[in-house]
C-alpha cells in the first residue's frame, strides 16, 4: 500500500485545488460585465506588480494589501479572483512552483475575507482594518507553511507545524508589519480611488 504520508500530500494539494475550483466556479456563475472583468484583471496585474515593486524591502508584500483593498471595495468573489489571479500571473514571470496553488489560495482568501469583513461590519474602523491586515501577514505565512509541512516534514503533528511556523516567524512578521504600515499610510487613499472607479461600473443613466 502507499504510505500514509503520500496520501497526506496528495489530499492537501487536491483540497487546495478543489477550493480554488469552487471559488472560480462561483465567479463564473456571477453576472459579470466587461467592465468588471477588466477591472478585476487590472487589479490582479497591479497586485502582481506589487511583488516586484517592493522586492527591495524584505518580505513586504504590497500584493496582500492591494488584494485586501480590492476585496474590501469589490466584494468577496472579486477579491478572491484578484488574489488568486495575482499569484498565478506574477508566478508566470517569477517562476511557477509547488507554492503557486497555495499562494493563490492564501491571497484569494485574504481578498475574500476583506470583502466579507466589509459585509459583516460595514462601519469597520481604520484601526480594525489595520489589525486585520496585520493578522493576514501571519495567516498567509501559516497557509504557505501548510504545503511545506504536509509534503516534507514528518511526523505530521502540531509540534512539527509549530516548528515550521517558528522557522518562518521573522518573515511572517515583516509581512504582517508591511501590511499594517501600507494600510495605515495608503489604505484610505486606495479605497477612495478604487471605490470611485467601482461606482462608475454601477452607474446607469435613465
Amino acid at each position, binding site marked *: 500500500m*502507499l*504510505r500514509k*504520508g*503520500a496520501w497526506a500530500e496528495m489530499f492537501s494539494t487536491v483540497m487546495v485545488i478543489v477550493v480554488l475550483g469552487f471559488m*472560480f466556479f462561483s*465567479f*463564473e456563475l456571477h453576472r*459579470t*460585465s*466587461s*467592465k468588471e*472583468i*477588466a*477591472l478585476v*484583471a*487590472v487589479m*490582479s*496585474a*497591479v497586485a*502582481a*506588480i*506589487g511583488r*516586484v*515593486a*517592493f522586492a527591495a*524591502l524584505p518580505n*513586504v508584500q*504590497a500584493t496582500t494589501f*492591494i488584494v485586501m483593498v480590492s476585496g474590501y471595495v469589490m466584494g468577496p468573489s472579486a477579491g478572491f479572483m484578484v488574489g488568486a*489571479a495575482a499569484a*498565478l*500571473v506574477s508566478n*508566470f*514571470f*517569477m*517562476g*511557477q*512552483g509547488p507554492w*503557486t496553488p497555495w499562494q493563490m489560495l492564501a491571497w484569494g482568501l485574504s481578498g475574500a475575507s476583506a470583502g466579507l469583513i466589509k459585509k459583516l461590519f460595514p462601519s469597520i474602523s481604520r484601526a480594525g482594518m489595520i489589525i486585520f491586515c496585520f493578522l493576514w501577514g501571519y495567516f498567509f505565512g501559516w497557509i504557505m507553511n501548510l504545503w*511545506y509541512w504536509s*509534503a*516534507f*516534514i*514528518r*511526523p505530521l503533528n502540531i509540534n512539527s507545524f*509549530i*516548528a*515550521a511556523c517558528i*522557522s*518562518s516567524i521573522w518573515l511572517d512578521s515583516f509581512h504582517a508589519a508591511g501590511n499594517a*504600515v*501600507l494600510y495605515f*499610510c*495608503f489604505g484610505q*487613499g*486606495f479605497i477612495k*480611488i*478604487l471605490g470611485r*472607479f467601482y461606482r*462608475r461600473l454601477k452607474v446607469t443613466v435613465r
Partner: protein
Amino acid sequence: MLEELFYQEKELFLQKLHPAAAMLHICTLLVLSLIFTNPLYLVGIFLCTGLSVYALEGLQTWKLFIKGGLLMTVPIMIINPLVSRAGATILWHGPRLPVFGKITVSLEAVFYGAVMSMRLLDVISIFCLYNIMVHPDKALNILERFAFKSALVLSLATRMFPAMIRHLENIKQVQVVRGVDFSTGSFRQKLDKYTNLIYILLLSSLEDSMEMAEAMQARAFGSGRRMCYVRDVFKPEDFICAASSMTALFVGALGAVKGYGVMNFYPYLGSVYSMGDIYLLAFMLAMLSVPTLLSWGWHRCRYFR
C-alpha cells in the same frame, strides 16, 4: 533575471508538444516524485527532469530554481530531525524545550530530512520544466474550456503584467529625473517613494481598464457564443509522449502499491534497493525519457519530423 524565469519561445520540439501531452508529462513526473520516498527513485526523476530541461536549453533557468530550492531545504533538514522521535539510532541528546519536549536527533531522521530535501529539489525542477516548456497562453487555453471568465481575467492580467512593468519603469525614470532617489532614505521614506509609484500606476491602469472594457464591448464581448480561432492539433508525437507518460504513471503507481520505491525510515533505515526496484526504476525512467529522446531525434534526424 525575471526574463529567464518566463517562458521563451525557442521553437524546440518539447515546446511544440500539445499542451495536454506536455501537462500530462509534467503531472506524471510530479505525482511520481510525491509517491516515492526511495532516494534512488528521487535522484532518477531529478536526472530525467534535468535531461528534459537540457533539451529545452534551460540550464540557466534551472540553476536559478535550484539555488532557491537549496535555501528552502535548510528548514527541512533542521525541522525533521528536531521533531521526529521515531528513529532508533540516536546521534545527539539535546536540551528540553517548552513545546517540543526533550530534543533527540536520530540518524534516521537526518536521513529522512535529506531525502525530503531531494524531493523538494525534484518538485522545484519539475516546475522549472513547466515554466520553460508550456506557454502560459496554452495552459490558460485548457482552463478556458471550463471557466471562460476566469481564464479571460487571467489572460488579460498576464498580458498586462509586462506592459505594467515597463510602465512602472517609465514612471520610476520620471521620478528619478525629478530628483527622487530610490536607493537612499529610511524604511518609511523608501516605502513612501515606492508606494507613490504604485499610486500613479493604479490611477493610470484603472483608466486603461475602462478603455479595455469598451474595446471588449466594441468587439461584441458577451453578445453570444464565442468562436475559437486557433486549436492545437494532437499529433502522433503528442500521442507517443502522452502514452509513455501514462505508462510510467501506471507502472509507477502499481509499483508503489506493491511496495517498490517506498523506503522505510523508522525505527531503522530500510534497504535502499532490490533487483525489483532497479528493474522498475529503469523501465519508468525509460518511459519518462521518451519525450527527450524524441526531441533529440527531432533535432538530429529528418525522419523524426
